[in-house]
């Protein structure tokens, strides 16, 4: 098992990074009925971990017994019936899914699932909310007659889906509690946000990441040279998941650790670094053609296009003069926006590369003749 999974805190009490939030959540679910929740924050900040720990807090260990299902829904959409397929993760008390996987038909998913869940609500709690005592552990858990629905990536839902989510939320709030999870709350409509308790999960600081890495190192019985975990944390871009993954990679590559051991970058980052040097060296149609092959390579390996563009910008910014930085970041924002509106990502990334070449070339000519 990977360390990221092995050392994922199971309960709200074990959480190392967002202790204050965890304690507040605990209070929230033990005191009274739980409202709808919206978790937002950058990736690798611990949203999912907190949600799973929260479910465990409510339902005890039964929340961990999940099964993966590939479900098909028949949806009646006016004149025709649509078949929708989606993977769900469910236990007796909760269902987790990413409705945005259904693409432009996402709004049917939201409506159908909630309706269906309202029909098959858990029977063992017999309606009323009360306290269930787990006979084995002696712990008391609140039993909700509502099922919990965890929706991932709500920021990627279409406007229509968000509208229908909002209506369904009000209509069926007696039967289900929603836990929404997303990266940027700007993209979630105000109507949804105002109906949920918003919980912001910030990315852990480098010191916090160091603390977690040291904790894992101790559990694994590793000897860690001083400053080593700090270097990993610095390269992690404040993503805890990423830090733990590269910590484990280092462990596999070379142990005992040495204090100057290199921390391997991700393959795709290395690749984008090469692309950046390529276009800094030569600005010509031929070079553009070569770069296109590399961009395709990244895309077929499922690196999201906006990540490619952002990383490319990051690499370019490291090498440019101040005035050029302004211009390049402006065009990066411009082409990323166009990419969102368009269909083929490669066009827009390539357009950015071509634009960069033209800016850089005219800068070189003006400066060096």
């Amino acid at each position: 098992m990977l360390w990221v999974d092995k050392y994922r805190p199971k309960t709200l009490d074990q959480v190392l990074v967002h202790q204050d939030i965890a304690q507040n959540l605990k209070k929230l679910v033990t005191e009274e009925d739980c409202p709808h929740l919206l978790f937002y924050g950058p990736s690798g900040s611990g949203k999912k971990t907190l949600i799973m720990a929260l479910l465990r807090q409510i339902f005890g260990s039964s929340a961990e017994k999940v099964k993966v299902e590939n479900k098909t829904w028949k949806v009646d959409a006016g004149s025709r019936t649509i078949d929708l397929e989606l993977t769900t993760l469910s236990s007796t008390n909760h269902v987790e899914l990413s409705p945005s996987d259904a693409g432009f038909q996402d709004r049917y998913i939201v409506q159908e699932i909630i309706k269906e869940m309202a029909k098959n609500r858990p029977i063992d709690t017999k309606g009323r909310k009360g306290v269930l005592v787990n006979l084995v552990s002696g712990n008391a858990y609140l039993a909700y007659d509502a099922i919990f629905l965890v929706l991932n990536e709500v920021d990627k839902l279409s406007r229509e889906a968000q509208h229908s989510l909002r209506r369904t939320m009000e209509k069926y709030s007696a039967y289900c509690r929603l836990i929404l999870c997303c990266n940027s709350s700007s993209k979630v409509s105000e109507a949804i946000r105002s109906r949920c308790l918003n919980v912001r999960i910030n990315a852990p600081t480098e010191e916090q990441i160091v603390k977690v890495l040291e904790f894992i190192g101790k559990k694994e019985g590793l000897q860690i040279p001083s400053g080593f975990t700090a270097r990993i944390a610095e390269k992690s871009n404040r993503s805890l998941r990423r830090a733990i993954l590269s910590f484990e990679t280092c462990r596999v590559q070379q142990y005992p650790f040495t204090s100057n051991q290199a921390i391997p970058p991700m393959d795709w980052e290395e690749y984008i670094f090469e692309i950046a040097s390529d276009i800094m060296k030569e600005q010509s149609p031929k070079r553009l053609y070569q770069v296109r092959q590399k961009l395709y390579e990244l895309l077929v390996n499922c690196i999201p296009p906006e990540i490619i563009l952002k990383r490319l910008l990051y690499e370019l910014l490291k090498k440019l003069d101040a005035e050029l930085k302004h211009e390049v970041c402006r065009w990066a924002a411009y082409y990323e926006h166009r990419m969102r509106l368009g269909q083929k990502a490669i066009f827009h990334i390539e357009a950015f590369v071509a634009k960069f070449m033209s800016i850089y070339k005219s800068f070189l000519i003006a400066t060096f003749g």
Partner: protein
Amino acid sequence: MLFYGPPGTGKTTTALAIAHQLFGPELYKSRVLELNASDDRGINVVRTKIKGFAAVAVGSGQRQGIIEPLASRCAKFRFKPLSEEIMSSRITYICNQEGLNLDAEALSTISSISQGDLRRAITYLQSAARLFGSSISSKDLISVSGVIPQEVVDALFAACKSGNFDLANKEVNNVIAEGYPVSQMFSQLFDIIVEADDLSDEQKARICRKLGEADKCLVDGADEYLQLLDVAGSTMRALCNMPEEFSYN
């Protein structure tokens, strides 16, 4: 009747109160139909369901959205955003009823962050009470409301003023890592810029135009980091009187 005004100013509450007054509790159920037209139910629902009902009260967020032939057939009532005093007195009343403790600072914070929207104020209050218990400070309210702490906004603005691109980039990265919503950052930046005394009108106009463009891009689903960085860059160029256009073209 046509009720219009911003959210949380009591349009629905007034309409329902009128209905209650007219019909009393028994008849109320059979005589009142509440529809949210924005629920894109289409023309059919409006036609078929409303037929059986005589009087129609219409509530609207924006007056412009109502076509003139409809507006001219209604008695119009405008609901203004609530003043801070009204807000505070209502919040104090709720606090007393629910046994919550709010100090003077928290009270003024809640009135200002909810911007005349009482529903929003009550939601914030309830969320804060659920998370933090019965003693609520101004900081607790800010954390549940999603408003960005002023020092974070100030730090970004100062970085733009410094003219150092890398510094601004660092602040932008920080805002994203902390998970603050960028749309909220835009509106708070906008407040700073509009109120600033030491900026020329041209500088303000340049920045505001960029904010508008970036806001539209965000709605289209553009990346938050890139948009904020672009805004920070443009703001810096305006504040430091750098040319708007790239000089090597």
